[in-house]
């Protein structure tokens, strides 16, 4: 379980003064839940996600994971217990697929045999036959394959939490639909707590248990897809839904 309590994050840049990216945010993500953070550009959704693995630290407020304050933990240990997936995979181009996935096992000091077994298992899980893909380099993969490898890499140490930063944003619509289906199946198979940042409402409706819609650093509505459709909390939410779902409201 991840709890944000009164989190504020300000950025100060010379010449631009102080910008409040996240304002007094309180949010609880239950264990095993998939929460989508969505909203217009600059709404603070990515900042909120990066606060969890301390890529960004709060100006004020506390975040706890399973009851423990993350600011009191070693950031390296914290991050190894939290999988991280970024747009287009963020794979290291000089390493093979297998080494990309097994990198954290390697730095954790696993025996090579154990690492290899784990890598093969993960490749099977994301539907990439190890015999065909383990030795390839990221440059030899399609966009969808890279994204699958990125997910497999995030799962390497079997973390309880996965953070995903617009993971399907750079894919063509057909591949994206296919990966959405795989994601839903995978989620059922691995049972992780997932925070997923997206700007695509259809994706949010399809993949998440709950959605938090943000605007100017604050959550304007949080709830299930059904809640959003039945009871938009404000004209802003209504407008946002209409513009993203084309007014049909039939996605998910």
């Amino acid at each position, binding site marked *: 379980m991840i709890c944000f309590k009164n989190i504020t994050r300000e950025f100060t840049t010379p010449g631009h003064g102080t910008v409040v990216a996240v304002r007094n945010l309180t949010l609880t993500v239950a264990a095993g839940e998939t929460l989508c953070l969505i909203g217009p550009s600059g709404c603070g959704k990515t900042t909120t996600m990066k606060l969890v693995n301390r*890529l960004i630290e709060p100006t004020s407020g506390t975040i706890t994971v399973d009851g423990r304050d993350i600011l009191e933990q070693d950031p390296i240990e914290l991050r190894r217990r939290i999988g991280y997936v970024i747009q287009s995979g963020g*794979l290291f181009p000089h390493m093979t697929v297998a080494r990309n996935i097994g990198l*954290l096992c390697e730095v954790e000091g696993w025996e090579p045999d154990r690492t290899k077994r784990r890598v093969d298992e993960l490749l099977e899980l994301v539907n990439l036959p190890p015999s065909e893909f383990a030795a390839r380099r990221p440059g030899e993969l399609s966009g969808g394959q890279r994204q699958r490898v990125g997910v497999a890499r995030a799962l390497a140490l079997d973390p309880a939490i996965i953070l995903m930063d617009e993971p399907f944003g750079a894919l063509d619509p057909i591949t994206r639909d296919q990966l959405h289906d795989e994601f839903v199946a995978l989620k059922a198979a691995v049972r992780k707590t997932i925070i997923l940042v997206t700007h695509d409402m259809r994706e949010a409706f399809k993949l998440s248990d709950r959605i938090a819609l943000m605007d100017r650093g604050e959550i304007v509505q949080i709830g299930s897809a059904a809640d959003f459709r039945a009871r938009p909390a404000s004209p802003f939410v209504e407008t946002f839904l209409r513009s993203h779902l084309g007014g049909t409201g039939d996605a998910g």
Partner: protein
Amino acid sequence: MRARRYAIVLLATALLAPATSFPNENDTISIGSKADTESRLLAEIMAQLIEARTGLRVERRFGLGGTKIAFESLRQGEIDLYPEYTGTGWIVQLGRTETVSDPLRVYAYVSAEFQRRYDITWMQPFGFSNSYALAMEERVAADLGVTRISDLLPHQEQLRAGVSHEFLNRGDGFPGLAEAYGLRIGDVRGIEHGLSYQAITAGQVDLIDAYTTDGKLAGLNLRLLEDDLGFFPPYDAAAIVRTTTLEAHPELGPLLDELAFRIDNARMQSLNFRVEERGGGFVDVARDFLEEEQLISAVAAQAATPPSRSGDMARWVLQHIALTLAAVLLAVVVAIPTGILLTRRRALAGPVLGVAGVIQTIPSLALLAFMIPLPGFGLGARSAIAALFLYALLPIVRNTYTGIKEVDPDLLEAATGMGLTDSQRLWKVELPLASRTIMAGIRTSTVISIGVATLAAFIGAGGLGEPILTGLQLNNMSLVLSGAVPAALLAIVADFALGRLERRLSTDRS
């Protein structure tokens, strides 16, 4: 961190230690010379004399690149003696500006001042003065009845002079001369000194400047005009020796003074002529001279002849590779960590790259000269390696910095976000991704170093510059090529091999 620093120092020591030499060992006299034929020949004469007549071992460090380098080497004790000119001591070392035509006064002054200021002794002069002079074709001079510079005055309107650019512009050259004699030559032009001899024999000019002991004069029918007003400063040649060396070896002073006044202008001219125009080796010409003067016996001369030049090529190539390799390895050890540091402290990047850039703009020869007076450096391989090392720094530092800086920030965020430590991120992500760029920097540095290392011969560090330097002095093109071609080949091979390595690194990342 500390352990790593020790490792660097140890490595540097290991690389430099074999290059160290000990010219001031008790039984060794180190003789230097400047790069010109005359200086080398005089040095060789003294070397053979000492070898034949004393039990001392002689180390030859000939061809030092100019007065400053030779003199600094002497002051630092890198060499024990070298041939110098009184006029040079007067103007260059002692900084006197007024012209004094009395050779005795100049000699007395420089020898007293050198002793007082530098603890360096002027031996007695060899007997010639290598000064500027004006020369005319013998036939023309006879027709006009000219033997002295003053005799030119009645004919000055119709004379054509072709003089070297330096002579044309130096205060103690043509302008001063014209003023002292009230000379107004009708047509004066600056021409390359090497061409002036052809110009005068072809009758295109009537008057040229020359050095009074120039070997080329002996082959031509030229008349040197007497400097009847004593305008040109005297350039009497003599050995200058560290006084401590003379005290340590009391037999040395009297022996060197046996050469006093043995060589007049005509004799020096003909000795230079034999080396430059007849292609006689320094060793043979020096030995013949000493035998003719009965300063050594033929038997002793044979024994004193240094080993032949066979195997020189292998030595030059190996020295060249060793100099370059040591410098580039040191540069890699220093520059890559520096480049990495700059990516962590970006505010330092501007100043550090700026300093490295400024070092690169220092002319190579000047950088070599700066090294000599530094404690622990001096003449030879250490200074050469240090200078090459300084040149090699910039491309490697810059490419390390740029290579790491240009790694995709998304990848760095992925690396940090997944839980890599700073050093894991550096070793597993940043350095591998920057490796091709870093390799390109190492390649640039290596090729530059191979080129600049040809100048190492100027400070007695050997390498392929040795035949180039000697060949240039002797106008011996095949000797020049025997150094230049292997140096170019080395550069091409290194460029090719490192280029292959660089491309291998790049295919690894695709």
